[in-house]
């Protein structure tokens, strides 16, 4: 299982951003997104500055622009929604190229598009510079309930196993000539899902027994405690602080 553990979004590297303790990065990204969301939408230049900030971080982390942009594609459904907004929103209308658009709708579309894109870009940067296990350690360090962290770590560890099991079932179905074409085949797929559930649950029971036999008593021992020095915290929190400055400027101007 060792090799499959690095998730596909992670990009191995040794940059200063990769080296930061995970909880400082998590805190920084979260604070940054909060600041972005609370910026007034009329301050268009502020969002430009935020994008520049993120680009600087990406440069420091040596994440190529193409990689980042490709990951941003997850946002496409919302872009479609935002494009539609000027047509359905109410309020005073303006004529652009012969189309009657709502002013409020245009602002709303801009708002969702800008803030959503910046949020996605920040998360993508976090995921591409932080290893999965580190991320979970960071969450634990940020006082997320240990049980929740354990559940998340089991989900991540066994996600690939379960997905592989599902893939094997699909191959088994297809090798017997099955092809899902419409509603009539839902029964077969649902039976697969049921079988998958039983397999996952039974695997969970086996995992639990294996854990008990290794001395598990309800909590996982923390063997690699992560700590952050003051310098690392201040380095990580530079991003949200600069963003906060921009945000305050955006409100006052």
């Amino acid at each position, binding site marked *: 299982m060792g090799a499959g553990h690095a998730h596909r979004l992670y990009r191995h590297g040794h940059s200063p951003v990769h080296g930061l303790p995970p909880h400082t990065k998590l805190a920084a990204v979260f604070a940054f997104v909060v600041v972005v969301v609370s910026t007034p939408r009329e301050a268009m230049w502020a969002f430009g500055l935020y994008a520049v900030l993120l680009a600087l971080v990406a440069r420091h982390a040596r994440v190529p622009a193409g990689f980042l942009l490709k990951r941003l594609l997850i946002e496409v459904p919302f872009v479609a929604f935002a494009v539609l*907004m000027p047509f359905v929103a109410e309020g005073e209308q303006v004529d652009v190229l012969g189309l009657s658009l709502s002013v409020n709708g245009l602002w709303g579309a801009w*708002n969702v598009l800008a803030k959503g894109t910046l949020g996605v870009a920040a998360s993508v940067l976090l995921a591409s510079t932080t290893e999965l296990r580190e991320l979970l350690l960071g969450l634990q360090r940020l006082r997320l*309930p240990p049980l929740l962290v354990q559940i998340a770590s089991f*989900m991540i560890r066994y996600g690939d196993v*379960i997905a592989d099991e599902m893939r094997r079932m699909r191959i088994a179905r297809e090798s017997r000539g099955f092809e899902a074409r419409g509603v009539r085949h839902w029964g077969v*797929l649902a039976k697969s899902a049921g079988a998958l559930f039983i397999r996952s649950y039974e695997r969970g029971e086996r995992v639990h027994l294996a854990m008990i036999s290794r001395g598990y008593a309800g909590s996982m021992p923390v063997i690699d405690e992560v700590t952050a020095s003051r310098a690392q915290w201040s380095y990580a929190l530079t991003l949200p602080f600069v963003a906060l400055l921009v945000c305050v400027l955006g409100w006052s101007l």
Partner: protein
Amino acid sequence: MHVPDGFINAPTSAVTGVVAAGAIAVSLRGARRELDDRTAPLAGLVAAFIFAVQMLNFPVAAGTSGHLLGGALAAILVGPCTGVLCVSVVLLMQGILFADGGLTALGVNITDMAIVTTVVAYAVFRGLVKVLPRGRRSITVASFVAAVLSVPAAAVAFTFIYWIGGTTDVSIGKVATAMIGVHVLIGIGEAVITALTVGAVVAVRPDLVHGARDLRQKLRLRVHGELVDAPAADEAPTGARTPVAARTSRRTLWVTGLVTSLVLAGFVSFYASANPDGLEKVAADKGIDKKAEEHASADSPLADYGVKDVTNARLSGGLAGVIGVGTTVVAGSAVFWAVRRRRTGDDVSPTAVENV
């Protein structure tokens, strides 16, 4: 339905975040009661299952396909508390790892997709299982109804959150019709798959279906040609010994409650549809309504179920009824559970004394 950053304003996001944190705290305690120290591996594996099942695509018609949301499925298979935890963890990981759904919108996402779906589904499911005759078929029927109500309920919750703190200027009526209209269709797909899946599991391992644990038969042994009850294992389940009289009275209670809420909901929906929203009417007259219906909730991962303009006044009216029933059942069962817990609490102590 993964909400991105900036779609809901900051104060509302914060409030929903607090709501989500509270609900997760309650479910953590509840899950420990449901699974004790097996919680971490089992809930983790079930979360992995939900994650995998969301990738399983169901073809709807030529070219389009949808996938399962899994809230109702999790609630019925592993119980509401574990269900909430599993779906929340899936959402958290999707937010952090895959940037699917904003980090500040995590509270909104968990509230409407993990909590509302799971709680509504489980309440409806338990209510129906109590009312319907005991058997495997009623488990399937109940899970169908539970799933069919849970998805529009999540849409209603989203509309409510949007109404409080939406950052865009689309009228609430439009958002409601579009969201609920689309999600009723999604709910039907979800319900069919959920019911079939639960049916498949019940057929093979009925003991794994948390919602159907009442159906468990007592183990009986054939000794010298006659059936005798097997001696109870280490611990007898506390709920299994309810007297028959109590069960029938409980069933009457459920039936009355359900009928009353249906009648009430029908009444409300009649008035609701008799007097449509002015803005909606304007929008319909202008012909822009259709666009809104088709795309205004393109945020949903299931939006490719191929939705056409299905929402008219009567449907939305009927929907109000359906949602009304859902809400009433939830509220009613909350009260009912509180009462029953007190009653079983009273019951347990004397038997414990007897046993000693």
